[in-house]
């Protein structure tokens, strides 16, 4: 990691320092560690997005098209007509301040423009100036600001300091969702060619190869087969992991990090073990080899373009329904957008567990079930033989990812699973879990290394809650169900709470799962040796 990273004690000295000039002054300083690199032209070209060119936010000249202002104002007008959310959110905020200290970036940075209300005002002020009577007549007095290049630069800085986590929206008396406003602002910026690298490269990879990492079909097959070998080494059971198999009952889609990154990988081993043990008739797909969708951090149109492959592949392979792995923003897309954008999925059947017979009627239209819903149902019906003591070396807590918590309400399923497969589970303080959960600080495409200081700041509230259970209950493993979390909570905890690892829910399932014909397990899925068997028997 970069040498510019301050020590935790320094970073924790957060001061609220509003500029005496007020928020209407758009000056921002692009300080190293607090912003993300711009997208390279190749990715924009591949995706057919406007104004591909080389530039960086620290450049004086951002090489915008001459009529950038008209493009944005026109884009705003169009979106006001298309989205009631935007129109209502532009008009109803009363600046009551209830959302102000709910944002992890404000808590961790003290920067007043990271208060959700002020973040929204950055766009709202332009709306007032150009679209309201009062703003047109009174200008600044009515809170209107003209869209200048400085305002645009300020947008870029602050709308890429929002992880679209929706925590602010829980507390707003009108449900104003700053994430929604950030999404609109990012769309507008993209119209004139302002995009970040960490979002656009995964998007163009995903468009081409089916996954963010750009893994090609044979590479995908290799990774899955490698995992199968590894699982055999640990459990002695050789599982079957079919890819692109037509006529399977279920298509399984998960984020690509699961088969390429650590600690995600152990969760993948958990899936493989589970599917084998219950004899699931399923297939992987190399074309739909990504559940995540970085389009969500860019524009509605990119969401739709990238997500189309899920139904297309389900249709091609002739499956009955789709099962989805552990991911946060992937599930925001599947739950809130996919049916509308890529549906109707009437060529699929209402999902039904082939093991328990449970009909997942709550997914009757979208036809996609979350793996934790699926597994919780299996456990409830007693279809899994579990030995939770195999997780006794872990003292666990659970991080609700923003999207499953605040865009689905998937709260109990993972907890039920964890409590069934782990003997030691402790909740973090109530203001930091469930619908009030704190973001990892790196979601919505901000999880890149050059942005590390901001990530560590934004992750402070989450890390601090982990610290609490670490101190009080010796918690040493933070469980989560999100690929971005698994990737970004790891350095976050290394920094703020050394001694706590990050893991996935189905990693715990895989550890606890007693498989037919397995050998005695001497290590967990991470390959960490268990203490000698006698010891664990005697406890």
């Amino acid at each position, binding site marked *: 990691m970069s040498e510019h990273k301050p020590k935790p004690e320094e970073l924790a000295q957060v001061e609220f320092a509003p500029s005496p000039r007020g928020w209407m002054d758009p000056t921002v300083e692009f300080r190293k560690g607090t912003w993300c690199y711009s997208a390279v032209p190749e990715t924009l070209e591949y995706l057919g997005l406007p104004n591909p060119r080389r530039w960086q936010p620290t450049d004086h000249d951002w090489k915008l098209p001459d009529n950038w202002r008209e493009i944005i104002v026109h884009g705003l007008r169009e979106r006001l007509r298309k989205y009631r959310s935007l129109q209502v959110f532009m008009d109803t905020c009363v600046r009551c301040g209830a959302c102000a200290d709910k944002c992890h970036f404000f808590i961790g940075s003290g920067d007043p423009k990271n208060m959700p209300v002020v973040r929204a005002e950055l766009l709202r002020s332009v709306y007032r100036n150009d679209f309201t009577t009062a703003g047109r007549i009174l200008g600044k007095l009515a809170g209107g600001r003209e869209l200048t290049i400085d305002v645009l630069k300020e947008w870029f800085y602050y709308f890429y300091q929002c992880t679209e986590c929706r925590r602010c929206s829980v507390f707003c008396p009108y449900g104003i969702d700053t994430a929604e406003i950030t999404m609109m602002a990012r769309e507008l910026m993209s119209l004139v060619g302002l995009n970040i690298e960490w979002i656009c490269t995964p998007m163009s990879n995903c468009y081409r190869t089916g996954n963010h990492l750009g893994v090609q079909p044979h590479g995908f097959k290799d990774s899955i087969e490698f995992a199968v070998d590894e699982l055999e080494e640990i459990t002695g059971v050789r599982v079957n992991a079919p890819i692109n198999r037509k006529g399977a009952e279920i298509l399984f889609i998960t984020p690509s990090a699961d088969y390429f990154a650590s600690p995600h990988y152990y969760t993948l081993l958990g899936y493989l073990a589970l599917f084998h043990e219950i004899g699931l008739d399923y297939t992987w797909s190399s074309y739909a080899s990504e559940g995540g969708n970085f389009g969500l951090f860019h524009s509605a149109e990119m969401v739709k373009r990238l997500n189309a492959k899920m139904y297309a592949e389900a249709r091609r392979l002739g499956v009955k329904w789709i099962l989805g792995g552990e991911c946060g923003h992937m599930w925001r897309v599947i739950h809130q957008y996919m049916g509308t954008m890529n549906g109707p999925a009437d060529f699929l059947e209402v999902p039904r567990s082939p093991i328990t017979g449970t009909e997942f009627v709550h997914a009757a239209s979208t036809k996609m079930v979350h793996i934790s819903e699926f597994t919780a149902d299996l456990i409830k019906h007693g279809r899994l033989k579990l030995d939770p003591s195999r997780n006794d070396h872990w003292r666990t807590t659970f991080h609700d990812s923003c999207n499953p918590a605040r865009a689905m309400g998937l709260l109990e399923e993972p907890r*039920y699973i964890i409590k069934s497969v782990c003997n030691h589970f402790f909740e973090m303080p109530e203001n930091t879990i469930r619908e009030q959960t704190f973001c990892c600080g790196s979601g919505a495409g901000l999880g890149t290394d050059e942005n590390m200081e901001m990530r560590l700041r934004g992750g402070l509230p989450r890390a601090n809650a982990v610290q609490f259970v670490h101190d009080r209950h010796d918690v040493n493993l933070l469980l989560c169900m999100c690929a971005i979390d698994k990737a970004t909570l790891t350095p976050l905890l290394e920094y703020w709470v050394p001694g706590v690892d990050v893991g996935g829910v189905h990693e715990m399932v895989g550890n606890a799962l007693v498989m037919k014909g397995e050998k005695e397990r001497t290590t967990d899925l991470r390959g960490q040796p268990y203490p000698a068997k006698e010891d664990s028997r005697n406890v």
Partner: protein
Amino acid sequence: MSILVSLFAVIALVVLSIAGASVLGWQYILGVVLPYAAMATFVIGVVYRVIRWARSPVPFRIPTTCGQQKSLSWIKSSRLDNPHTLAGVIGRMVLEVLFFRSLFRNTRAELRSGPRLVYGPDKWLWAGGLAFHWSFLIIFIRHFKYFVEPVPSWILGLQGLDGFFQVGLPVLLLTDLIILTALSFLLLRRVFDPKLRYMSLPADYFALFLLLAIALSGVYVRYFGKIDISNVKELATGLLSLHPVLPDGVGTAFYVHLFLVSALLAYFPFSKLMHMGGVFLSPTRNLANTNRRRRHVNPWDYPVAVHTYDEYEDEFRDRMKDAGMPVERE
């Protein structure tokens, strides 16, 4: 700055109406013309704004879920905070509109040394907001007594309840006390909380000052103005029946009050006070979380460019075949 601009704006309104009523002889303008104009602006403006909101569709179903979803039969779902039925949505909205449920959740985060983040409950804003809105509503309803004859007994009952403590003459009404306290609190927190002061616009102070001025002038008229209620009633019913009459002896203070109310009405549709309507139309609150159960249709949906399986296979076919993966076309 913001605060002074707004204060002076409201003072100017007060001075203008005092001068108009006492020196310039603007009784007809203040008592008839402006109330009608304000009322018309209010109605047309509010209808226009609501139509404008309603005209924009809701392309996606995006409720903010604040509780457990409805999924497996044995998991208890949160019917109000994550509604999956119409009744649940109505319940959520009623609690939101009448009792400010989201504000009730409010907490205060504080970063202490350590670092240690602590959260405390913070119900002041909720209490202040609720006190203001409810007392405003009751006062508003109380005013019906000036417009109808005979006064319905429930309004008298309400007023009786309001003056429950029977202090003073005329009897002190609790809501008058509450609204002044609540407005002062809302104003003071804006001034003294640095976060609030930073985010506040002139419009935020203006609304508070105007409401305070209306409340104060109303209090003055009721408790100190010693005006003849029957005259006020004559004016009010006259306005309502579209046969305006200007009775004598309603006094300058009353005209100030009426003028400020007219100003509020006319200002309303152009201001953040429209949150009164917006709260009903917020897509994060007024939709059921039935996203995967029922398909939501986007009226402006359009086809987009996608990377099809065939294109994908065309690019990678050889490598797929080498790896022994099935392909559609050889």
